[in-house]
Protein backbone atom coordinates (compact mmCIF):
# COMPACT_ATOMS: atom_id res chain seq x y z
CA UNK A 1 0.00 0.00 0.00
CA UNK A 2 1.30 3.46 -0.90
CA UNK A 3 2.39 5.76 1.88
CA UNK A 4 -0.33 8.19 2.86
CA UNK A 5 0.16 11.73 1.59
CA UNK A 6 -2.74 14.13 2.00
CA UNK A 7 -0.92 17.23 0.78
CA UNK A 8 -2.59 17.24 -2.67
CA UNK A 9 -5.99 16.87 -1.07
CA UNK A 10 -5.18 19.65 1.37
CA UNK A 11 -4.02 21.90 -1.48
CA UNK A 12 -7.23 21.26 -3.42
CA UNK A 13 -9.32 22.08 -0.36
CA UNK A 14 -7.28 25.22 0.17
CA UNK A 15 -7.85 26.19 -3.48
CA UNK A 16 -11.56 26.16 -2.69
CA UNK A 17 -11.04 28.07 0.57
CA UNK A 18 -12.79 25.15 2.22
CA UNK A 19 -13.98 25.69 5.77
CA UNK A 20 -15.72 22.37 6.20
CA UNK A 21 -16.00 19.51 3.74
CA UNK A 22 -17.47 16.06 3.73
CA UNK A 23 -17.32 13.16 1.30
CA UNK A 24 -19.27 9.97 1.77
CA UNK A 25 -22.71 8.44 2.19
CA UNK A 26 -25.09 10.91 3.80
CA UNK A 27 -27.33 9.75 6.62
CA UNK A 28 -29.81 11.71 8.70
CA UNK A 29 -27.44 11.62 11.69
CA UNK A 30 -24.44 12.72 9.63
CA UNK A 31 -26.44 15.68 8.31
CA UNK A 32 -27.37 16.57 11.88
CA UNK A 33 -23.79 16.28 13.20
CA UNK A 34 -22.20 18.11 10.26
CA UNK A 35 -24.85 20.79 10.52
CA UNK A 36 -24.03 21.27 14.20
CA UNK A 37 -20.33 21.50 13.34
CA UNK A 38 -21.05 24.11 10.65
CA UNK A 39 -23.07 26.21 13.09
CA UNK A 40 -20.44 26.01 15.83
CA UNK A 41 -17.70 26.94 13.38
CA UNK A 42 -19.57 29.89 11.90
CA UNK A 43 -20.70 31.21 15.26
CA UNK A 44 -17.00 31.85 15.98
CA UNK A 45 -16.51 33.55 12.60
CA UNK A 46 -19.48 35.89 12.45
CA UNK A 47 -21.77 37.77 14.79
CA UNK A 48 -24.64 37.49 12.34
CA UNK A 49 -27.01 34.82 13.58
CA UNK A 50 -28.92 35.13 10.29
CA UNK A 51 -25.77 34.26 8.29
CA UNK A 52 -25.12 31.19 10.42
CA UNK A 53 -28.72 30.03 10.03
CA UNK A 54 -28.73 30.67 6.26
CA UNK A 55 -25.57 28.61 5.67
CA UNK A 56 -26.90 25.84 7.92
CA UNK A 57 -30.26 25.91 6.22
CA UNK A 58 -28.90 25.72 2.65
CA UNK A 59 -26.63 22.86 3.77
CA UNK A 60 -29.66 20.99 5.21
CA UNK A 61 -31.77 21.52 2.08
CA UNK A 62 -28.96 20.41 -0.27
CA UNK A 63 -28.12 17.28 1.67
CA UNK A 64 -31.72 16.33 2.41
CA UNK A 65 -32.55 16.76 -1.28
CA UNK A 66 -29.78 14.28 -2.11
CA UNK A 67 -31.04 11.80 0.50
CA UNK A 68 -34.56 12.23 -0.80
CA UNK A 69 -33.44 11.70 -4.38
CA UNK A 70 -31.53 8.55 -3.44
CA UNK A 71 -34.50 7.15 -1.52
CA UNK A 72 -36.95 7.86 -4.32
CA UNK A 73 -34.81 6.52 -7.15
CA UNK A 74 -32.65 3.65 -5.90
CA UNK A 75 -33.73 0.16 -6.94
CA UNK A 76 -31.54 -1.63 -4.38
CA UNK A 77 -29.30 -0.96 -1.36
CA UNK A 78 -26.16 -0.61 -3.45
CA UNK A 79 -27.70 2.07 -5.64
CA UNK A 80 -29.19 3.80 -2.58
CA UNK A 81 -25.72 4.04 -1.06
CA UNK A 82 -24.21 5.24 -4.32
CA UNK A 83 -26.83 7.93 -4.88
CA UNK A 84 -26.66 9.11 -1.26
CA UNK A 85 -22.87 9.43 -1.45
CA UNK A 86 -22.10 13.07 -1.83
CA UNK A 87 -19.56 15.79 -1.45
CA UNK A 88 -20.57 18.74 0.67
CA UNK A 89 -18.43 21.85 0.91
CA UNK A 90 -18.72 25.03 2.92
CA UNK A 91 -16.26 27.63 1.71
CA UNK A 92 -15.62 31.35 1.74
CA UNK A 93 -14.87 33.76 -1.09
CA UNK A 94 -14.86 37.56 -1.38
CA UNK A 95 -16.74 37.99 1.85
CA UNK A 96 -19.40 35.43 0.91
CA UNK A 97 -20.07 31.96 2.23
CA UNK A 98 -20.54 29.31 -0.44
CA UNK A 99 -22.53 26.15 0.17
CA UNK A 100 -21.95 23.44 -2.43
CA UNK A 101 -22.86 19.83 -2.96
CA UNK A 102 -22.06 17.20 -5.56
CA UNK A 103 -23.79 13.89 -6.20
CA UNK A 104 -24.51 11.32 -8.88
CA UNK A 105 -27.76 11.73 -10.74
CA UNK A 106 -29.29 9.43 -13.35
CA UNK A 107 -28.80 11.00 -16.74
CA UNK A 108 -32.52 10.63 -17.47
CA UNK A 109 -33.35 12.74 -14.39
CA UNK A 110 -30.96 15.53 -15.31
CA UNK A 111 -33.14 17.62 -17.68
CA UNK A 112 -35.88 18.06 -15.06
CA UNK A 113 -33.33 19.05 -12.41
CA UNK A 114 -31.32 21.46 -14.54
CA UNK A 115 -34.51 22.86 -16.09
CA UNK A 116 -35.81 23.66 -12.61
CA UNK A 117 -32.56 25.36 -11.56
CA UNK A 118 -32.42 27.25 -14.89
CA UNK A 119 -35.92 28.64 -14.27
CA UNK A 120 -34.94 29.70 -10.74
CA UNK A 121 -31.81 31.37 -12.12
CA UNK A 122 -34.00 33.64 -14.24
CA UNK A 123 -36.11 34.81 -11.31
CA UNK A 124 -35.61 37.84 -9.10
CA UNK A 125 -36.43 37.90 -5.40
CA UNK A 126 -40.05 38.82 -5.97
CA UNK A 127 -40.67 36.03 -8.48
CA UNK A 128 -38.94 33.51 -6.20
CA UNK A 129 -41.12 34.58 -3.28
CA UNK A 130 -44.27 34.20 -5.40
CA UNK A 131 -43.20 30.74 -6.58
CA UNK A 132 -42.32 29.70 -3.03
CA UNK A 133 -45.78 30.70 -1.82
CA UNK A 134 -47.48 28.91 -4.72
CA UNK A 135 -45.68 25.66 -4.01
CA UNK A 136 -46.21 26.06 -0.28
CA UNK A 137 -49.96 26.55 -0.72
CA UNK A 138 -50.40 23.82 -3.33
CA UNK A 139 -51.88 20.64 -1.84
CA UNK A 140 -49.19 17.97 -1.48
CA UNK A 141 -49.34 15.43 -4.28
CA UNK A 142 -50.72 12.03 -3.29
CA UNK A 143 -47.97 10.09 -1.56
CA UNK A 144 -45.56 13.02 -1.77
CA UNK A 145 -42.78 12.83 0.78
CA UNK A 146 -41.25 16.17 -0.05
CA UNK A 147 -42.57 19.69 -0.25
CA UNK A 148 -40.54 20.56 -3.38
CA UNK A 149 -39.44 23.82 -1.76
CA UNK A 150 -35.75 23.11 -1.16
CA UNK A 151 -34.21 24.58 -4.31
CA UNK A 152 -36.54 27.59 -4.27
CA UNK A 153 -35.59 28.27 -0.66
CA UNK A 154 -31.87 28.04 -1.50
CA UNK A 155 -32.34 30.43 -4.41
CA UNK A 156 -34.13 32.89 -2.13
CA UNK A 157 -31.35 32.81 0.46
CA UNK A 158 -28.58 33.14 -2.13
CA UNK A 159 -27.19 36.56 -3.10
CA UNK A 160 -26.55 35.37 -6.67
CA UNK A 161 -28.32 32.90 -8.96
CA UNK A 162 -27.65 29.26 -8.06
CA UNK A 163 -24.96 27.76 -10.24
CA UNK A 164 -24.37 24.17 -11.27
CA UNK A 165 -22.37 21.93 -13.55
CA UNK A 166 -22.77 18.40 -14.84
CA UNK A 167 -19.88 16.11 -15.62
CA UNK A 168 -19.80 12.65 -17.06
CA UNK A 169 -16.99 10.21 -16.40
CA UNK A 170 -16.10 7.10 -18.37
CA UNK A 171 -17.00 4.56 -15.69
CA UNK A 172 -20.17 6.08 -14.20
CA UNK A 173 -21.20 7.45 -17.59
CA UNK A 174 -21.51 3.93 -18.93
CA UNK A 175 -23.83 3.13 -16.04
CA UNK A 176 -25.96 6.15 -16.88
CA UNK A 177 -24.93 8.52 -14.10
CA UNK A 178 -23.77 12.13 -14.31
CA UNK A 179 -22.10 14.06 -11.48
CA UNK A 180 -24.14 17.11 -10.55
CA UNK A 181 -22.48 19.97 -8.66
CA UNK A 182 -24.61 22.73 -7.17
CA UNK A 183 -23.52 25.95 -5.51
CA UNK A 184 -25.32 28.64 -3.56
CA UNK A 185 -23.46 31.87 -2.82
CA UNK A 186 -24.85 33.50 0.30
Amino acid at each position, binding site marked *: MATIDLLDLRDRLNDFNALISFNGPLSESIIKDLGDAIRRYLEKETDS*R*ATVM*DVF*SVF*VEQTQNIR*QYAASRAVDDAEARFLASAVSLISAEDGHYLVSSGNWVREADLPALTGHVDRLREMDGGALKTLYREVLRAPAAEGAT*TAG*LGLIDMARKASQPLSYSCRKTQEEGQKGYVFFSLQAVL
Partner: protein
Amino acid sequence: MASLHWEASATTPEIVWAPAQGVLSIRGESYPENALEFYQPVVAAVAEYLEAAGDGFTLRVDLAYLNTSSVKALMDILDLMEDAFKAGTAVKVDWVYDEENDRSLEMAEEFQEDLSLPFHAMPVTR
Protein backbone atom coordinates in the same frame (compact mmCIF):
# COMPACT_ATOMS: atom_id res chain seq x y z
CA MET B 1 -59.66 13.70 23.07
CA ALA B 2 -56.32 12.37 24.27
CA SER B 3 -53.52 14.76 25.04
CA LEU B 4 -50.23 14.12 23.31
CA HIS B 5 -46.64 14.76 24.21
CA TRP B 6 -43.69 14.14 21.94
CA GLU B 7 -40.23 14.66 23.39
CA ALA B 8 -37.76 16.59 21.25
CA SER B 9 -35.30 14.50 19.25
CA ALA B 10 -32.12 15.48 17.41
CA THR B 11 -34.04 16.99 14.51
CA THR B 12 -37.59 17.33 15.83
CA PRO B 13 -39.15 19.76 18.32
CA GLU B 14 -41.02 19.06 21.52
CA ILE B 15 -44.72 18.95 20.78
CA VAL B 16 -47.42 19.21 23.43
CA TRP B 17 -51.10 18.95 22.58
CA ALA B 18 -53.49 19.79 25.40
CA PRO B 19 -57.02 19.45 23.97
CA ALA B 20 -58.63 20.38 27.29
CA GLN B 21 -57.07 23.84 26.93
CA GLY B 22 -57.07 23.78 23.14
CA VAL B 23 -53.36 24.55 23.07
CA LEU B 24 -50.83 23.01 20.69
CA SER B 25 -47.26 23.93 21.52
CA ILE B 26 -44.28 23.28 19.22
CA ARG B 27 -40.86 24.20 20.54
CA GLY B 28 -37.26 23.71 19.43
CA GLU B 29 -35.92 23.02 15.94
CA SER B 30 -37.64 21.08 13.19
CA TYR B 31 -35.76 19.48 10.33
CA PRO B 32 -36.63 15.81 10.08
CA GLU B 33 -36.26 14.29 6.60
CA ASN B 34 -39.80 13.00 6.71
CA ALA B 35 -41.49 16.12 8.08
CA LEU B 36 -44.82 15.55 6.32
CA GLU B 37 -45.01 12.05 7.81
CA PHE B 38 -43.72 13.24 11.20
CA TYR B 39 -46.38 15.95 11.54
CA GLN B 40 -49.21 13.83 10.13
CA PRO B 41 -50.56 12.73 13.58
CA VAL B 42 -50.38 16.34 14.79
CA VAL B 43 -52.25 17.62 11.73
CA ALA B 44 -54.83 14.84 12.23
CA ALA B 45 -55.34 15.75 15.90
CA VAL B 46 -55.83 19.43 15.05
CA ALA B 47 -58.27 18.56 12.24
CA GLU B 48 -60.28 16.32 14.55
CA TYR B 49 -60.40 18.96 17.29
CA LEU B 50 -61.44 21.79 14.97
CA GLU B 51 -64.05 19.66 13.18
CA ALA B 52 -65.63 18.89 16.55
CA ALA B 53 -66.06 22.68 16.86
CA GLY B 54 -63.59 23.08 19.72
CA ASP B 55 -64.14 26.14 21.89
CA GLY B 56 -60.93 27.80 20.96
CA PHE B 57 -57.54 26.85 19.68
CA THR B 58 -54.11 28.32 20.22
CA LEU B 59 -51.02 27.31 18.26
CA ARG B 60 -47.92 28.28 20.16
CA VAL B 61 -44.83 28.12 17.96
CA ASP B 62 -41.34 28.61 19.34
CA LEU B 63 -39.10 27.33 16.58
CA ALA B 64 -35.58 28.61 15.94
CA TYR B 65 -35.32 26.70 12.67
CA LEU B 66 -37.56 24.78 10.25
CA ASN B 67 -36.55 22.97 7.09
CA THR B 68 -38.79 23.53 4.08
CA SER B 69 -40.81 20.35 4.55
CA SER B 70 -41.53 21.36 8.17
CA VAL B 71 -42.68 24.74 6.85
CA LYS B 72 -45.08 22.87 4.57
CA ALA B 73 -46.39 20.78 7.50
CA LEU B 74 -46.89 23.90 9.60
CA MET B 75 -48.74 25.52 6.70
CA ASP B 76 -51.13 22.54 6.71
CA ILE B 77 -51.93 23.22 10.38
CA LEU B 78 -52.33 26.95 9.73
CA ASP B 79 -54.67 26.26 6.79
CA LEU B 80 -56.91 24.16 9.05
CA MET B 81 -56.90 27.00 11.58
CA GLU B 82 -57.69 29.60 8.93
CA ASP B 83 -60.69 27.58 7.72
CA ALA B 84 -61.93 27.22 11.31
CA PHE B 85 -61.43 30.93 11.90
CA LYS B 86 -63.49 31.80 8.83
CA ALA B 87 -66.20 29.45 10.13
CA GLY B 88 -66.32 31.41 13.38
CA THR B 89 -64.06 29.42 15.73
CA ALA B 90 -61.79 31.41 18.03
CA VAL B 91 -58.25 30.50 17.00
CA LYS B 92 -54.93 32.28 17.32
CA VAL B 93 -51.22 31.86 16.71
CA ASP B 94 -48.62 32.91 19.26
CA TRP B 95 -45.29 32.94 17.44
CA VAL B 96 -42.45 33.22 19.92
CA TYR B 97 -39.11 34.22 18.44
CA ASP B 98 -35.67 35.12 19.68
CA GLU B 99 -35.02 38.83 19.14
CA GLU B 100 -31.59 37.90 17.78
CA ASN B 101 -33.05 35.54 15.17
CA ASP B 102 -34.24 37.68 12.22
CA ARG B 103 -35.12 34.60 10.19
CA SER B 104 -37.74 33.42 12.66
CA LEU B 105 -39.54 36.79 12.56
CA GLU B 106 -39.34 36.90 8.74
CA MET B 107 -40.92 33.47 8.56
CA ALA B 108 -43.71 34.60 10.89
CA GLU B 109 -44.32 37.63 8.68
CA GLU B 110 -44.54 35.49 5.55
CA PHE B 111 -47.05 33.15 7.15
CA GLN B 112 -49.05 36.16 8.30
CA GLU B 113 -49.32 37.52 4.76
CA ASP B 114 -51.41 34.51 3.77
CA LEU B 115 -53.65 34.44 6.84
CA SER B 116 -56.40 36.56 8.31
CA LEU B 117 -56.57 34.80 11.71
CA PRO B 118 -55.10 36.51 14.80
CA PHE B 119 -51.33 36.08 14.67
CA HIS B 120 -49.13 37.44 17.42
CA ALA B 121 -45.36 37.60 16.94
CA MET B 122 -43.83 37.69 20.41
CA PRO B 123 -40.15 38.57 20.80
CA VAL B 124 -38.17 37.09 23.68
CA THR B 125 -34.62 37.75 24.77
CA ARG B 126 -32.50 34.68 25.36
